[in-house]
């Protein structure tokens, strides 16, 4: 898991950049430890194409030592004529998706992410995880 040095800094903020024909919804959760099964804090889910600014984690409280997860779920409503066209729409997301975190010792950090597309449901999920040290 990647790490991001926040020290005693606050607030720590999240921003998600994306350019897509789909409706994306982004979910962000904070956990006390990596083994926790439920989040102790979360951001209100948002559409990152309509809410493009920075959002404070845990209402601006210090988040040192916490685990941070960001998941974006996209649903396309295009009437794709075939899977080739769908895959080109997916490529656009992969090329533009940029979950960033800020407020730590070294400024803006672009989180890496794993992703999977599902043509049968015209959906796409991207997930990032970060240890805040």
């Amino acid at each position: 898991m990647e790490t991001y040095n926040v020290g005693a800094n606050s607030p720590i903020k999240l921003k998600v950049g994306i350019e897509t024909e789909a409706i994306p919804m982004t979910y962000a959760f904070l956990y006390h430890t990596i083994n926790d099964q439920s989040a102790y804090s979360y951001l209100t889910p948002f559409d990152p194409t309509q809410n493009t600014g920075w959002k404070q984690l845990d209402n601006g409280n210090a988040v040192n030592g916490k685990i941070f997860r960001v998941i974006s779920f996209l649903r396309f409503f295009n009437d794709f004529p075939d899977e080739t066209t769908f895959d080109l729409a997916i490529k656009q997301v992969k090329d533009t998706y940029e979950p960033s975190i800020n407020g730590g010792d070294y400024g803006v950090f672009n989180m890496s992410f794993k992703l999977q597309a599902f043509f049968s449901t015209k959906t796409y999920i991207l997930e990032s995880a970060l240890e805040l040290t």
Partner: protein
Amino acid sequence: MNCFKYISVFVTSILFAQSDINPTAALKNLSPPNAPAFVLMDIAPSNIIVPDNIQAFSIQTINAFSGNSTDGLGNTNFALEFQPYWYVKREKMNFFTYNNLKLDQPEKETISVNDYTHYNIFGDAWKKASISLALMNGTYNVFEVPQSYVSIGARTRLLSVKTQNQISEIKAQYARYEQLMSSPEVMMVFAKPGLSLEERNTTITSLDGYQAMVADLEESLQLRPLFALDVAVAYSHFMGDKSQNLDATFGRFGVWATGDLAFYMPTMGKHGHVHIYGVLRYLRDGLHRDLDSGALRIEDAIDYGAKIALEFDNLYFGYEYITRDADKNTEERSMGSIRYKITEAFTINGAFGKNFISEGQTVALLGIQWGLDFNSSVSLDPNK
């Protein structure tokens, strides 16, 4: 000519060689072969077309139903069509922009659905633009033996107009979707660590509320615009025939516009519409032969006509009547067309009637369209 054929086969072979083709997916979403490069030569099932839901890349083919090449069409006629939109990076793209909704003020960090108060009637012009290339072979009621033509064409939806009700419905459905996706039931699925992406997707997309919601939103988006104006341009080049002492020369050039007035008819099905089309086309036609010298000559013509079509969920009937007002005479094309989707993987397209210069003979066409499936749904690791 042979050189072009070899290049076409070579390019196609490369595409297939690089593809992991899924035959079931490759046959999905068939629609009539209607690339402008075909329409210019009057061999498409319908001369009145709209660029609806074009594949990013497709190959279309038309054969003579009778197999009798002297009737007009000869061997298989191929067209490649692609949409540049999908191959370039889209800037400032989002769901509303894609559906032609515009903000009433400069962009800000937090945008509400109610900030989208304008509709961009030219919003489809780039999205729906396509370019087609075709290789055709036939007598076209001009030659004694089939001759080859190469065509290039382009088309797009120049403008579309949606009603205020249609726009309000899209915005309302978006708000409902956003609300559903922010519900505790959905958030729990994403908050739970340890689930794979596939498990999360399956769980979310299986929710009853989700399925009903996306069905409603898709339905509101699939309603045809009240009015749409489509434009196309195409050029066809005659490849020549040394056996008849005919050199390669100008074939046909056409530029045309089609207006589509669509009335939503829910009693005809979920996607039921009655369409009334009007078409106007300028044609510079080199498919004429001088009776004395046998040489090809060019005539100018104006096509104008109308079409009425009934669109049900899986069935489509259309009838079109077009008059060609040429330099020396007037001709008519009177064609009926039908499309029936048997399953998601198989659709039949057909047309019959009287074509231009067919001298009362009935013409029958049968066509299919299929797409190439280059890759399955992707599962990528950006770190690699």
